[in-house]
């Protein structure tokens, strides 16, 4: 198979199997329009669904509600409480949606719907719009600080709350959406490869639960960087390279936050313990050995079977891999 056919076949596979289905997109749009109504059109989508990198089935939609009444002097918890009260009241009277549960998190309000065959929820994060603009001319926001912390750090942060109350932190959700959207316009293979990679990550997460700590957004940024550095790259090249680069991604944080260059999106890699790294790299090595066979696939059937095998991650995986080639005495590079 030549490279063009390989790439087109992979893209078709992603479109047909991994992209959210039309009915689901319509369902989500309907729910989003309803939410907009409740929030007087003062909200926007964020997260992977807004960046067109969500995979089927979509389980949640992240939205941001820039509050006009609040300021950064307000306690985020109080802002969340008032948002919760507003949404609870609105959804209780909704003629459109059947709600399973509406709950108040520390940083957002989550609405779980009962009228969706797959579990589906909308997460509404309150925010405050800043006058400062990002490189695209869109405003920065502040969101509750806790949103940007991982589970472990949240726990520590809660313990310190009395001495140092939880506040707001600068964020650039529109910047990430715009960057992904521009990249997708430049090369649609970005979207296809990110979906394929994220689907694999999702399957790893499903198989191993919280023991699997590799973050979805971190992975998406790796795809973004790859396409930024390799314009015109194919989905085939990107998926092999980005899965390969997971081995490099756990050494040190590499992705600066758009809103704050002193912060790293992948800061969490510093806190990964050895068993977490072992699991991430074990699954990476398995996936990489499958992906390396893609370029030599001789038929569409063989290619599809390899892709199915790639995204099929099972716990206690018994895939047999051949022993490594062992070479002694590393050579030291020289230059005259």
């Amino acid at each position, binding site marked *: 198979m030549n490279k063009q056919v390989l790439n087109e076949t992979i893209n078709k596979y992603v479109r047909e199997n991994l992209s959210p289905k039309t009915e689901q997109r319509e369902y989500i749009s309907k729910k989003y329009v309803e939410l907009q109504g409740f929030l007087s059109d003062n909200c926007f989508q964020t997260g992977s669904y807004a960046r067109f990198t969500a995979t089927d089935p979509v389980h949640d939609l992240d939205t941001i509600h820039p509050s006009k009444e609040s300021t950064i002097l307000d306690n985020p918890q109080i802002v969340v409480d008032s948002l919760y009260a507003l949404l609870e009241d609105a959804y209780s009277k909704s003629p459109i949606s059947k709600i399973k549960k509406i709950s108040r998190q520390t940083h957002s309000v989550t609405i779980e719907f009962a009228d969706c065959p797959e579990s589906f929820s909308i997460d509404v994060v309150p925010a405050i719009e800043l006058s400062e603009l990002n490189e695209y001319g869109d405003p920065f926001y502040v969101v509750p600080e806790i949103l940007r912390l991982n589970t472990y750090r949240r726990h520590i942060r809660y313990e310190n709350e009395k001495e140092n109350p939880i506040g707001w932190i600068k964020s650039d959700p529109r910047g990430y959406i715009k960057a992904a959207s521009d990249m997708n316009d430049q090369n649609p293979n970005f979207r296809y490869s990110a979906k394929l990679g994220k689907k694999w990550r999702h399957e790893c997460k499903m198989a191993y639960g919280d023991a699997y700590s590799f973050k979805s957004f971190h992975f998406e940024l790796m795809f973004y960087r790859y396409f930024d550095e*390799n314009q015109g790259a194919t989905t085939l*090249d990107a998926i*092999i*390279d980005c*899965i*390969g*680069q*997971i*081995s*490099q991604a756990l*050494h*040190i944080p590499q992705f600066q936050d758009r809103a704050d260059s002193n912060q790293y999106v992948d800061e969490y890699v510093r806190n990964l313990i*050895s068993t977490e*790294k*072992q*699991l991430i*790299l*074990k*699954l*990476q*090595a*398995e996936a*990489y*050995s499958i992906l*390396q066979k893609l*370029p*030599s696939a001789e038929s569409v059937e063989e290619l599809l079977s390899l892709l199915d095998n790639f995204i099929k991650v099972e716990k206690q*995986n018994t*895939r047999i*891999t*051949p*022993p*490594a*080639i*062992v*070479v*002694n*005495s*590393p*050579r*030291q*590079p*020289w*230059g*005259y």
Partner: protein
Amino acid sequence: MWSNTDLDWLHINYPDLERREDGVIEGRLSFQMLHINGRHLIKPSSTEVAAHVVNGIYLCDTYQIKITWYEGAHYPQVIECSSKILKVAKRFGIKPIDVHLYPNGTFCLASWQDLIKRFENSFSLEIFFYEYLIPFLFSQTYFSIHKKWPWGELNHGCWGLLEWLSRQKKFDQKDIRRTAFWAAQNAGPELTRKLFLTRCRDHKPCPCGSRRKTRECHPDITTAISLIRGAISRGAFSIDNLI
């Protein structure tokens, strides 16, 4: 030149690399390697990766390369087409030679003596890949993250050639002769005389002229210099032969 066995091996193991009509091998080389306790494991299994991830270094990466075999050479030359390595040099503000690229962009995979010794009798693309090329690319990827070489490097010029000899656990007279010859070619007549006609000692000023003690500047050259001086005094070759 590479044999059909080499090309068959290449097709099976690295199908993204193809031999063009003019004999050049070109394409993407994706590698997977684990470095542990001074050993390389190429294409390690997931179990091996998981077992050694704490005390080893595991990296995968892809480079766009071109491998050319010039007539009369014992081994081929490799060049990177996507400038990934040069970009790393630029990012760190260092010269291409400091990321072990020759001025024409080809890789300094190892010292000349090492490569000649390995391939003077027969060449195998598999050995070239597993012992030289993939470890070289692995070290480049590691350097791009940590700004240091995973298992050290040889200094540039004659100093690196001497270091290579000093660091060998096993060597023969041929290695000494070759090192002396190439170091002399690299150093020029004046420095060659200075190197091989004067005793080099750890606590004395380094022959490179840095004014630092040899042990603080080029600590690994003293063994090689004594070996070469020994060979000269035994009459194995003379300084005049070298220059």
